[in-house]
């Protein structure tokens, strides 16, 4: 059923009793041409673009829990494309372009709000780094503006612009097309659109291992029995190490917990996405009114989907240092998601040494914003067997051959990226 004003009115007149489920609750078939493990944004987007752009036959997405129950529902909903190394720049920009047409494409309102993002700079050195980043973005056709403190002050009047401020504001790198999107709607929109193209979405089906014929993967063992597959794609960021481990692979990944926070709803007060340059802190206001923010990883290996209190204190201290009025807001909820932290801080969309097994993971902090581009490029990989031009750098060999994409320049320490 297409969603439209006409259909809304029609269903309203019929008492809203005839809406159809947005997707079928499929039972697993014996065999699929492609199986994608993981029913989050990336897995569902991959299935959608696989069905839309390629001709590969039957496709299934299998998910151990419910759709979007992992990091798709646990992020701070920010979308942007301000990366500067290798494929990162153009890949995230392709994602941004897909975001811009996504609600129409999926016939599902993902509530994209291009409210603009300010990355604040608090020193000459940070201004120089922002200028470099901005120039790289502009050379790739991405919008970026380096603005001075007075221009920041006219847009964000609530910050402290005195020279005596603890972290004086020198200016900001501004991306006007950046913003936020409704995270759950992204999973649901892709699920519904993929379902309409014939993709089977199988929930409550946990993968416990793979079946092989010689060196080649021939399917997955699951809590609902064996399912045969021509090709298997892993899109389970947070748990990539485990799913790859079942095939005997070791990954350049550690799983770490990243916490996020939301306050009670308040009146509109924060019109943009704001990133603090003196500490790791980023904030926006949801359409419902809650102030949504986050900061650093907890900093130790974890699969627990919950963090500890010292990091809560650290993030809130950062926030209050930037916006003292935050101290008056009451925290409503905070939660943790499990990040695939790669050893260079950039993602992996690549074939593995196991024939027929492909990986989409290692998203670190960049997973949500990457969802559409990730799906687009992973679908290409699953269909063609080789990397899309936008993700050639996201291979597994880069760690051994020295072509790492370390945007922050911190070296092989997973929790420092």
């Amino acid at each position: 059923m297409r969603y439209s004003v006409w259909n809304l009115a029609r269903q309203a007149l019929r008492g809203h009793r005839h809406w159809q489920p947005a997707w079928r609750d499929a039972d697993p078939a014996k065999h699929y041409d492609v199986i994608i493990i993981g029913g989050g944004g990336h897995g569902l987007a991959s299935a959608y673009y696989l069905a839309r752009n390629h001709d590969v036959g039957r496709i299934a997405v299998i998910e151990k829990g419910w759709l979007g129950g992992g990091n798709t529902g646990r992020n701070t909903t920010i979308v942007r494309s301000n990366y500067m190394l290798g494929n990162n720049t153009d890949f995230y920009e392709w994602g941004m372009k897909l975001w811009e047409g996504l609600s129409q494409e999926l016939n599902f309102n993902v509530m994209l709000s291009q409210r603009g993002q300010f990355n604040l700079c608090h020193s000459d050195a940070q201004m120089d780094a922002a200028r470099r980043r901005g120039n790289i973005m502009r050379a790739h056709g991405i919008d970026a503006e380096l603005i001075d403190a007075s221009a920041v002050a006219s847009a964000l009047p609530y910050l402290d612009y005195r020279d005596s401020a603890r972290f004086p504001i020198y200016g900001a790198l501004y991306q006007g097309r950046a913003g936020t999107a409704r995270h759950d709607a992204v999973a649901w929109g892709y699920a519904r659109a993929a379902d309409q193209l014939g993709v089977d979405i199988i929930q409550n089906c946990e993968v416990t291992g793979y079946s092989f014929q010689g060196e080649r993967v021939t399917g997955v063992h699951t809590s609902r029995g064996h399912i045969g597959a021509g090709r298997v794609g892993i899109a389970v960021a947070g748990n990539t190490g485990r799913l790859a481990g079942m095939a005997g692979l070791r990954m350049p990944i550690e799983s770490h917990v990243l916490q996020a926070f939301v306050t009670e709803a308040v009146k509109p007060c924060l019109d943009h996405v704001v990133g603090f340059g003196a500490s790791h802190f980023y904030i926006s206001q949801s359409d419902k009114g809650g102030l949504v923010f986050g900061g650093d990883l907890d900093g130790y290996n974890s699969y627990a989907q919950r963090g500890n209190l010292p990091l809560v204190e650290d993030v809130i201290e950062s926030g209050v240092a930037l916006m003292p009025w935050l101290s008056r807001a009451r925290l409503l909820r905070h939660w943790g998601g499990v990040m695939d932290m790669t050893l260079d801080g950039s993602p992996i969309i690549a074939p593995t040494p196991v024939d027929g097994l492909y990986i989409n993971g290692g998203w670190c902090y960049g997973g949500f914003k990457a969802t559409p581009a990730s799906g687009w490029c992973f679908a290409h990989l699953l269909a063609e067997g080789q990397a899309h031009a936008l993700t050639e750098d996201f291979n597994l060999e880069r760690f051994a051959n020295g072509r790492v994409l370390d945007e922050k320049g911190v070296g092989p320490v997973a929790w420092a990226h």
Partner: protein
Amino acid sequence: MRIRCPHCGLRSHAEFSYGGDARRQRPAESNADAAVWSDHVFLRDNPRDVHEEYWQHTHGCRVWLQVTRNTATHAISAVSIAADKSESPCNEDEQ
């Protein structure tokens, strides 16, 4: 999460710095195989289970500890002083 430092007692993990997987064995300096080094530097077991890991009591006695902690629950089952462990972080057999 609190870690029982053998010198200082039960302390918040905020006093400690994380040092990562304690099972990784640094190859001998004489080992010139690039693949061995890149595996050591970049690949991890990353278990969702018991994890042997290093923590330094940075804001306390500064000793390096080896902590046995479950990454799925955060439960700590053992803490010892890293230097007392028989396993050396460097693979001396190859030297």
